[in-house]
Every structure is written in C-alpha cells, then in structure tokens.
C-alpha cells in the first residue's frame, strides 16, 4: 500500500518538483504577467469573432475531415496578442494571433491556434519554459533584463529565424491584414488511410496598406480597427494547406518548409462579427490544437502535447476563477510580479 501511495505521488509529479510540468509552465506565464483572474494565462488580451468556413472541396482529396467537404462550417474564433496581461498595449509585441474552433456536423470539432509569424520561437517545451524564465520582469524596472534575454537567445540558435522576423516586423495596426500560421505540423488522413504531413495558414484578402494609420497602434487600436472594418462587411482569409515532403521536419516549428512545396487553397474563412471577450462565445473555449476531427492527426511535434497540457491547466485555472471555486486564487508567490 505504501508502495502504491509512493507510485501515485511519483506519477503526479509531487516527488519530482523539478520535472517540467504544465503547472510550472503556466506558473511561469502567470508570474511574468501578474495574476489576472479569469483571463487566459497567455494571449490574455483578445476579442471574440465568429463566422464560417466555406470549403471548396479541394482539401477533401487529402483529408476525410468533414470540414473539407464542400460547404459551410460555423466558426467561433479569437484574435489576440501574446502575453498574460489583458491590458497590454497593442504595440507591445509584433505578434498577433487567430484561434479558430470549427464546429463540424455530428459534434466533432477542429481547434487551431495560429500566430502571424512563419516560424515559432523555440522547438521544445523546455526551451519555451527557459525563455519564460529569461523574460521574467525585473522587480525594480518591471522590464525583462536584456542581458538575460540575450543570453537565452545566444544559447538557443533555433530562435534565429523568429528573431529575424521580429526585427523586421512592425506591430501591425490591424488584425485583418495578417496571415496566421498554424506552425506545428499535422497529418491529413485521406480516404485510403494515407497520412500526408501538412502545415496550414490563413492568408488575408485584406491588403496590408488599406487605410493603415501612420504610426504603430496604440493602446486598443486593434479592436477599434476590427470593429470599423466589420461594420463595412465581413473579413476574409483563405485557408492554405501546404503538403510536406517526406524529408520536411514535422517536429520542429522553428524551421520553415521549402517554398516550392505544393499548397492547396481549401476554402474561405469569413469573419462576420466581433464581440468582447468577457461576454463573447470564445471566452470559455480552450483553443487546444490537439482537438481534431477524424481526418486530421497530430504529428510528432513536441510542442503539441505541451500546448494541450498547458492550455488545459490555464483553462482549469481561469474557469475555476470564473466560478470562484475554492483554491482558485494563486499561492502568494505567483502574484508577486505585478502588472507594468
């Protein structure tokens, strides 16, 4: 019995507090941004959107997922910026994100979270965690210590392509003009059961320069811009699916696939409405990228399992806070690092 108890505690991770767990990653996110009850622990600032995906049937040859048969699938989405601070100014980062939940017939779902850069910063959950530690705000300045960050990037050459993108990318003044990349690789499964390695992105119909304001966005410009555009009509993106070759890495989101890989335009994402995230339909959605319909499967990308596990923990915390369940306030040390 004692052995059983010990084995149980070991499995739960209580005897190995240094093992990387979802809880430690989410604690680190929470420490960096401060405690904001009810909000996502990352990409905390965002807005709900809704509309539909109009499939043209072109991807159906590669995946039996019902979302790719010709026709419409309703979509609940969320546009956001990264970081755990729901009041962060819109120019605090060049990264923008779009998360989507496709509601397929029969109760199946496809959830995906995408960012506007073509490569992810790191390739593994361990490196993601180290980056969070390196970016922890200094208690005196409330800013990350540049030397620590530089040391992290120097020790992680795989961050090079992302840094090159970040250096040349100005924070966009609109969500509507961005492409959003799924980054992680997945498999499409066709009717014969064959697996096709894929990566997807959505590319905007809205061109980048249409009524772009002069400077970078200030505090809440992104949602104002979105509301203004939606008042004039729906926003459209094309869902582009790139087919990988056998030699393309499926386990490394920091490396792009060669540009000549075939890309299918699978249909149009149409966003019609936006709603405040505090009351909108995306609030209680966990955009866990491993919630997939039959016909799409995860790859060996190590970020995927880590995301599933960490998003679930973030979701557990924020829904618990919403419900005021006992124990939903964090331990004192996790609240110490406060907002800027």
């Amino acid at each position, binding site marked *: *019995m004692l052995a*059983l*108890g010990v*084995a*149980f505690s070991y*499995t*739960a*991770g209580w005897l190995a507090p240094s*093992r*990387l*767990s*979802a*809880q430690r*990653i989410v604690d680190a996110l929470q420490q960096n941004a401060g405690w904001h009850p009810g909000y996502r622990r990352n990409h905390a600032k965002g807005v709900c959107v809704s509309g539909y995906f109009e499939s043209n049937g072109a991807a159906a040859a590669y995946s039996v997922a019902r979302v790719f048969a010709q026709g419409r699938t309703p979509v609940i989405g969320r546009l956001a910026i990264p970081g755990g601070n729901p009041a962060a100014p819109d120019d605090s980062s060049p990264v923008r994100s779009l998360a989507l939940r496709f509601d397929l017939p*029969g*109760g*199946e*779902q496809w959830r995906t979270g995408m960012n506007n850069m073509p490569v992810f910063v790191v390739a593994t*959950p361990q490196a993601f965690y180290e980056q969070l530690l390196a970016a922890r705000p200094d208690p005196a300045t409330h800013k990350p210590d540049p030397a620590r960050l530089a040391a992290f990037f120097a020790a992680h050459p795989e961050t090079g392509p992302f840094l090159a993108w970040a250096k040349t990318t100005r924070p966009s003044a609109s969500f509507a003009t961005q492409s959003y990349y799924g980054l992680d690789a997945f498999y499409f499964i066709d009717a014969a059961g064959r697996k096709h390695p894929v990566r997807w992105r959505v590319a905007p119909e809205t061109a980048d320069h249409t009524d772009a304001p002069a400077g970078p966005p200030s505090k809440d410009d992104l949602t104002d811009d979105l509301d203004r555009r939606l008042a004039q009509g729906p926003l459209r993106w094309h869902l582009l699916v790139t087919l990988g070759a056998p030699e393309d890495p499926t386990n490394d989101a920091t490396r792009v696939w060669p540009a000549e890989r075939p890309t299918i335009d699978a249909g149009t994402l149409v966003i019609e409405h936006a709603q405040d995230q505090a009351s909108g339909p995306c*609030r*209680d*959605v*966990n955009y866990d990228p*491993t*919630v997939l*319909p*039959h*016909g799409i499967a*995860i790859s*060996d990308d*190590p970020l*995927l*399992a*880590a995301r*599933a*596990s*960490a998003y*679930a*923990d973030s*979701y*557990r915390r*924020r*829904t*618990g*806070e*919403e*419900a005021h*369940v*006992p*124990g*939903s306030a964090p331990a004192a040390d996790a609240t110490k690092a406060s907002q800027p």
Partner: protein
Amino acid sequence: MNTHPAFHPLARVLHWTMAVLILAMLFIGVGMVSTVSSKHTWLLAIHKPLGIAILVLAIIRLGVRLRFRAPPLPADMPASMQWVAHASHWVLYALMFAMPLIGWAMLSAGGYPVTILHGWPLPPLVPAHGALFGWLRLAHGVLAYVFFLAILGHMGAALYHGLIRRDDVLPSMSFPRREPSPPQMSDAPATTQASAVGTALPEQPPEAQPAGDPASPGQGDAG
C-alpha cells in the same frame, strides 16, 4: 434466502477487473495532467474511453450486486465494523459512477467533443458553461484523491481480514474456500460455511452447485 457465503463469480471477475482498471485510471489521470511530453496525448486518449468503459462495467456490476446478494460478513464482526464495511462499499460504488459521469459532464461543460470512438463523439451531458466546467474539474480532481484514499482504506481492510483475522472475507471475493480439506483448514467452523462456490471462475452460477461440494479438493485458500 442467500446461503452462499461467497460473491457470485461474475461479481468477483468484475471486482478484480475493475480494481485494476480504476487504479490504472487514477495513475493515468494524475500522470497526464502533469506531463508536457507526448505521454499527455496518448494517456488522454486512453483515459476517456477507459473511463466510459468503467461506467458501463459499474452499471453491470450494480445489477449483479442487486441480483445476487452479497455474502454476509462474519457474524463475529462488531456491528459498527459491519456498518463501516457496508457504507464504504457504497462509497466505492458512488465513486465508480461519479468519476466517469463527472469526467463526461466536465468535458461537455468545457464545450469539448467527448471523443471515445474517433469521429463519433458522445452527446454532451450538460450544456457548455465555463463556470460549470470550473466546478466539475475541481470535483473530478478532488474525488480522484478521495477515491484513491478510499481504495487504500478498502485494501487495508481486506488485508486485515485476510492476514490478521484470517476470516472468510477476502476469500469470498477472491478464491472462495471449499469444504475443509486436510492440508490447511484448521479453522474449520468458519470455512465450512464459506464453501459454497466451486470453481473459482464464472462458468457456473453458484446456485447451480450444491452447497459445500465435498468432492472438491481445497486448493484456493485466501489468494
């Protein structure tokens, strides 16, 4: 009236199968929520269908339990101890139902598809509602620990019966004793009573067998 001092073979098979499955589920559960490795994915993929399988087995088991009465506890057990024994069994039953039902309801409240068979999710038990997810998620986690402690207590009690009291309780759920036979049955009076079920496994319901089959050799002492 029930004169069979052992559990129905089907009850025993269910008991031990489910004991293994439930313990496995508790380990899978706490393991998967902490790990960020690919184990998370496949443990979760086992957790959901296995949890629903436990629900189905629990329904069958409750039917078996109500259809074939449980053997009486040893008469010399104090009444308070008997009460605790019965109450603890109903607590275990309640948890066998509650855990999978909460798991299913929790995923429904979170707006997730409850994927058991790939491509054919179960219908939601409750409407999607974030705060309800918050409560059910807490309940699933807390009751899992209560379940684990209850099982440890139950095991302790079973071993106390089997190793210290050396009465019929453990054999009644494992390998029921037969008629006293030369090698080891010195505690004859109790065992004579306990000798209803013949072979240890289910082909034959106990009713089919004459109580105390004198021909069987005593092989299965308290496993």
